[in-house]
């Protein structure tokens, strides 16, 4: 009369797991300090480093004209802070080319001889702008600035001409575009970077925290005792997950506070929407860490695996820097399974758009929920209740 008694699932076992995990966290003051401080340190450090507002581009000017007008033009380049003249005396083409070669400067402006006399005799003058194509991003923006600077200079000359002929410039027909950017009117990249960076940091930190939790039990042999009890994998996973969700919510609260107070990022959405999304996202990130933790053999492997598995995809495939729409179809497909993608979209929306609610972000919410459930169940299944 043998039976195949499978034991009973009992979600009351989640509570002792939660209490035990809280004790682990509270007792390990050093790790706790890292868990709470690391996100802020990373955010402050990288928010300043990662900026798309390109300023102070190193520029060489070769002035063959050498007149009051050419010097005025040169001054215009440096007036608005976009360019910084590299050794102002460096007035030879050879020196500039060499400087470009050894990365001392990014661009060269060549003012042709006789510019001012040509202008006075109403001829077209061509100013050469040379850019270092090995740094496409800086140079394409720099060339844009150069274009605008020269165009403005040309326009001011034109206006002077018009005025000298006794015509009121205001009576001339002109069609002008009036660009207006909503939600972030000054196009401050910090408003765009900080929410994205917060998502990436939380992805890393939260996955890292859980990635250690199961493998630590294995390393310290407490795993063997646990599996000999009737505690079920899902009960253990949920108990651990709840603990870390609480800890990470504190992290997110700190990050959001720093974003608003320190970086002056406007927070226009609702706290409720933010909380809902944070919990959904943490569910995903922590679940991912848990899968890693129940698959690896040592804490070192867990750390490496988590860093590889979260950091690069979250930075490259989430739309944090590179727009997803301009990626090839396959890469775009892969980006769908990067949880940070949805959280970044949600955070940017919640921070900058006043009318953002869960309904307007339901697609992101759904994806996060589905991935979260998937990761939780997968990690419970990966957690084998034997020592094989």
């Amino acid at each position, binding site marked *: 009369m043998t039976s195949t008694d499978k034991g009973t699932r009992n979600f009351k076992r989640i509570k002792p797991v939660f209490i035990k995990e809280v004790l682990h966290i509270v007792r*390990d003051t050093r790790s706790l300090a890292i868990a709470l401080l690391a996100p802020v340190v990373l955010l402050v450090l990288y928010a300043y480093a990662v900026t798309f507002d390109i300023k102070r581009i190193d520029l060489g000017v070769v002035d063959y004209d050498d007149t009051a007008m050419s010097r005025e033009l040169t001054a215009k380049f440096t007036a608005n802070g976009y360019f910084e003249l590299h050794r102002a005396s460096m007035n030879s083409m050879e020196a500039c080319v060499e400087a470009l070669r050894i990365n001392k400067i990014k661009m060269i402006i060549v003012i042709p001889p006789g510019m001012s006399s040509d202008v006075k005799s109403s001829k077209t003058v061509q100013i050469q702008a040379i850019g270092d194509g090995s740094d496409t991003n800086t140079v394409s923006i720099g060339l844009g600035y150069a274009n605008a600077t020269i165009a403005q200079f040309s326009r001011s000359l034109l206006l002077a001409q018009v005025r000298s002929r006794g015509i009121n410039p205001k009576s001339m027909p002109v069609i002008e575009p009036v660009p207006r950017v909503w939600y972030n009117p000054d196009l401050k990249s910090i408003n765009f970077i900080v929410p994205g960076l917060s998502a990436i940091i939380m992805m890393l930190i939260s996955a890292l925290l859980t990635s250690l939790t199961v493998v630590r039990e294995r390393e310290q042999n407490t795993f063997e*005792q646990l599996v*000999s009890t*009737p*505690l079920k994998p899902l009960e253990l996973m949920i108990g651990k997950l709840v603990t870390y969700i609480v800890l990470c919510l504190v992290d997110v609260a700190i990050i959001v506070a720093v974003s608003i107070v320190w970086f002056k990022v406007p927070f226009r959405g609702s706290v409720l929407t933010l909380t809902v999304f944070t919990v959904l996202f943490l569910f995903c990130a922590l679940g991912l860490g848990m899968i890693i933790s129940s698959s690896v053999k040592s804490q070192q492997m867990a750390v490496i695996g988590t860093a590889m598995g979260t950091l690069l995809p979250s930075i490259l495939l989430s739309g944090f820097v590179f727009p997803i729409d301009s990626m090839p179809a396959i890469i775009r497909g892969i980006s769908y399974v990067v949880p940070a993608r949805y959280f970044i979209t949600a955070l940017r929306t919640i921070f900058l758009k006043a009318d953002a609610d869960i309904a307007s972000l339901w697609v992101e919410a759904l994806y996060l929920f589905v991935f979260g459930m998937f990761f939780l169940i997968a990690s419970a299944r990966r957690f084998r209740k034997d020592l094989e």
Partner: protein
Amino acid sequence: MEVISVTGLSKSFKTVKAVDSLDISVQQGEIYGLIGPDGGGKTTTLRLLCGLLLPESGEITVLDRRLPEAAEGVKEHIGYMCQRFSLYTDLTVEENITFFADIYGIKKQELKERLKPLLEMTRLEPFKDRLAGKLSGGMKQKLALICTLIHRPQILFLDEPTTGVDPVSRREFWEILQSIHTEGVTIVVTTPYMDEAEQCSRIGLMFKGKIIATDTPKNLKKNLNGIVLEAHPAFAADFREMIKACTYITDWQQMGERFRVVVKDEASAADITAAAGETANIRRIAASVEDVFVQKIKT
């Protein structure tokens, strides 16, 4: 009543056969000892019986439940204490106990009632608030024992509970086991120490994945094929040379000044006594489980 029944159990790790067609039967209320050297398959056997490893072939029935299918069901009624310390070192004695009690769903009031005698018996009461990592080796083992006893298991599995524990604590630990035993708990224990075999109601001698003999310690010793003598010779070196040359000596061991000698039969015993002479001070002593074990693995 039979609480554990194992037939033809085998388990391999890669190419090593850790457990080789084992048959074990344990009755309710016994202390069953698996005795043998390291690497003999004791730990693997215990893990298989607790449903922590999957058997390769053979039948395991524990408390009328078939393993590995009913492993989760069995786990509710057994206690398992593994060889290495496996509790949370950053939790206090009381927190560790409470955690395991909660896992088994023991109510607060009930825990209080059960814990009192356990803490008294193990004398851990004054250390309730000490972190488990800061306990001595013997106290750690006693704490682990409490954690595996708190849900009143029907069978207690102990994997080398006294390895690395000092002699006084070791003795104390066995006293505790005996008192648990009198309360009716079946105990399955592994140990590399032959002297601990005497504490068991029945033992299985385990060597290279097989049980080479199983019986009560008394019967095993009674059935030893030979006679055990002890000599305390005046000239140890000469005596040593003499017994080395003796063909009818099956086993001998020098212990300081004394020699322990196992011979085949009465005639051989008489021969050696005569040959060694008065100065050797030869007398008959009782056989030990170790004598049995050595004889078994030699044949």
